[in-house]
């Protein structure tokens, strides 16, 4: 079976966990939830670093059940911790070799050379970890985790200790990971923008319980969940390159929602892309504008309109082809345009993020 | 006789003369001697717990007797190998006169003696003070060395102006002043030796016990300030 099935339950002081979920054995699955909801506890339980009761099956192998639990070092996981976790007494190269010597034979995975190359580690190899920047450290930690040839790669907020450029750097590395390694990734985060960029599957947690789980866009656009109400709320869906216009640096992308013009690096037609459209970047017009700098105009239908935590705002779900977009507008505008479910409108999209 | 080896357990204060006696013995007999030193009490404790010693040269007579009584030594093997002489000594040249009047005057800050509970020279010093009727006066000013060697160190370093030490320790000192305590003032300091049980059949050990009473040994003893034991 190609799923990871887990059910953990138990207590940690005042905190009680009871979470069951099933994740595909490929791509990125994110555990999302507010601070203290139990994300780290679950990840540590998967890795065998704490003794939560429950059971855990990874593909065909049972790692934990009522009778027995594999010890941590016998589980074929790679674990990227939130903060620095390189061995201070070993150089970068020796940190990598440490993992290689203990790699699970038989599993597939990238070679040392390939990783050094793709993560740009060559100049770092002789250095000691104390002399690396935060971003460099996380890149090494990711390479090291992959070199154990894990069956599952666990990442606990690998970006939260990083800022600005280092964060962008690692996000790019993470986006490319599925191409580098066959191991599925279980990614823990409480930042919705990271989740939107990376995850194919989403498990939403709160206070130790699973609130919802499923494909990313289905979860992101459910207005009964908190994810649709944050600053970074938006929709995520797949597209395919139709054509690239090198002169304008623009790419035409076909998606379930129609054709979009996006800024993306040159790539051959047919290549799959992930598109993200933030609720704040979507405006609504009753007629198609002709002389505006806004490039993308899609015909859409209003699905429903929900309140937003900000009292003057509304969250509008728009059906665009087979896909649902979110738009955040003011109640003032909603009233002026007399928006209501079923109305045919134009979605004006100021920005599309592409992976 | 072919060469055997004998291990001596010697009270620390006797270490210098015993080395000379041992070489004389080795030269005369062809046996080999090894010397271990320590305080008499420590050596006794070690012997009681299986130490590999053949002959016990104590600084007193009590502990060899006890070793004999407790079956640690060959019965009847105990002999007195030397008699110690007590001397009042000061590192300062004119401090002590022939009458030891400094004691009577009480003209000193501290008086070093060996610990009377553990060292025979200490006991002899106390006996001497009592015999002179000076013990009560001296008591608050007494400082006690762990053994007679430490007592001498107190005096030699000037930390104690006076001290009762062994004649053997100062016999070749030209400087300083001394009063050899008359033997009437304290019970004789018998230093006894016994043949230990494990050495009952060690010919070298027996030979060494014999050699302790020899003229050669007696000459050495006298040179080092001991009285030789009464001839057997």
């Amino acid at each position: 079976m190609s799923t990871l099935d887990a059910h953990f339950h138990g207590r940690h002081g005042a905190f009680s966990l009871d979470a069951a979920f099933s994740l595909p054995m490929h791509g990125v699955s994110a555990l999302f939830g507010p601070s203290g909801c139990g994300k780290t506890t679950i990840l540590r339980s998967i890795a065998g670093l704490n003794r939560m009761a429950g059971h855990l099956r990874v593909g065909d192998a049972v790692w934990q059940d009522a009778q027995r639990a594999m010890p941590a070092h016998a589980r074929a996981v790679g674990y990227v911790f939130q903060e620095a976790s390189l061995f201070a007494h070993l150089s970068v190269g020796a940190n990598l070799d440490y993992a290689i010597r203990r790699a699970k034979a038989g599993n597939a995975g990238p070679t040392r050379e390939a990783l050094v190359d793709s993560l740009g580690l060559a100049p770092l190899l002789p250095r000691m970890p104390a002399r690396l920047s935060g971003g460099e450290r996380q890149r090494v930690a990711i390479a090291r985790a992959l070199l154990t040839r894990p069956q599952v790669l666990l990442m606990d907020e690998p970006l939260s200790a990083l800022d600005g450029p280092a964060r962008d750097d690692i996000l790019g590395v993470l986006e490319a990971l599925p191409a580098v390694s066959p191991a599925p990734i279980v990614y823990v985060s409480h930042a919705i923008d990271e989740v939107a960029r990376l995850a194919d599957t989403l498990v939403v947690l709160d206070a130790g319980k699973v609130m919802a789980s499923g494909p990313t866009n289905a979860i992101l656009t459910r207005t009964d969940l908190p994810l649709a109400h944050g600053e970074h709320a938006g929709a995520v869906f797949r597209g395919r390159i139709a054509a690239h216009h090198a002169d304008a640096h623009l790419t035409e992308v076909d998606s379930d929602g129609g054709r979009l013009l996006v800024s993306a690096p040159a790539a051959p037609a047919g290549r799959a892309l992930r598109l993200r459209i933030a609720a704040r970047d979507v405006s609504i017009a009753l007629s198609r504008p002709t002389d505006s700098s806004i490039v993308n105009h899609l015909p859409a239908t209003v699905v429903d309109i929900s309140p937003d935590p900000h009292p003057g705002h509304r969250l509008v779900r728009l059906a665009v082809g087979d896909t649902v977009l979110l738009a955040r507008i003011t109640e003032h505008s909603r009233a002026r345009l007399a928006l209501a479910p079923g109305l045919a409108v134009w979605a004006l999209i100021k920005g599309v993020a592409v992976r | 006789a072919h060469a055997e080896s004998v291990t001596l357990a010697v009270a620390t204060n006797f270490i210098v003369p015993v080395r000379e006696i041992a070489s004389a013995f080795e030269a005369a007999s062809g046996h080999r001697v090894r010397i271990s030193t320590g305080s008499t009490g420590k050596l006794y404790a070690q012997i009681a717990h299986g130490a590999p010693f053949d002959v016990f040269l104590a600084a007193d007579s009590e502990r060899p007797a006890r070793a004999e009584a407790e079956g640690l030594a060959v019965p009847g093997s105990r002999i007195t190998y030397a008699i110690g002489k007590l001397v009042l000594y000061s590192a300062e040249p004119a401090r002590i006169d022939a009458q030891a009047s400094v004691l009577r005057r009480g003209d000193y800050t501290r008086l070093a003696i060996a610990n009377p509970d553990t060292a025979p020279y200490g006991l002899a010093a106390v006996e001497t003070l009592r015999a002179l009727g000076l013990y009560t006066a001296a008591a608050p000013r007494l400082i006690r060395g762990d053994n007679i060697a430490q007592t001498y160190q107190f005096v030699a370093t000037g930390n104690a102006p006076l001290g009762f030490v062994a004649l053997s320790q100062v016999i070749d000192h030209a400087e300083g002043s001394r009063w050899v305590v008359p033997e009437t003032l304290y019970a004789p300091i018998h230093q006894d030796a016994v043949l230990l049980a494990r050495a009952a059949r060690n010919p070298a050990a027996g030979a060494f016990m014999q050699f302790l009473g020899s003229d050669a040994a007696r000459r050495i003893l006298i040179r080092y300030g001991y009285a030789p034991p009464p001839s057997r």
Partner: protein
Amino acid sequence: MLEAIALTLKLATLSTLVLLLVGTPLAWWLARSGAVWKEAVAAVVALPLVLPPTVLGFYLLVALGPNSPLGQAATALFGHALPFSFAGLVIGSVIYSLPFVVQPVRNAFEAIGERPLEVAATLGASPWDAFCSVALPLARPGLLTGAVLGFAHTVGEFGVVLMIGGNIPGETRVLSIAIYDYVEALEWDKAHLLAAGMVAFSFVVILVTMLTEKRLRERRA
């Protein structure tokens, strides 16, 4: 005298090794166990400190002597009881110096924290592998402090060794006893010479160890 020097070096080196071999697992257990009574064990380890060395030596003599159960077991095993042998010296020195090794090593292990060991486990290192490949190298400063204190203490150690060793030339007569004997025998010149040599030698050993450690630490930072 050369005999005594060689014996001292042999004893100090061997004791330091045994101290590290015994003290390191003990310190590890003290640092990581959740057992409530571990502080009691820690206090027991510190106890040899409060007994005068000679007295400690005396009790070791009693405990290991041929009449004790331990001594009889040793006799059955080695053919002789442990006191008055080099092996006995090592045992005495180890017990006496153990607190100086266990304390800093324990502190060093505690300073490592959980994380590096968890990381090692996720990289596939068994607990024993992680102990050797992660905990030991990370605790190196503490191990070095422990080794230096243990070495120095064994070199200077005297009461226990004198009592349990019996001051037998070439076998249990170490340098500290030799110096002691010279002082007692009033051969002060020889004592001064030996003491000065010993102090100078130890100074160099300690200084070099500390500077090496400092260099290594700076490389790591």
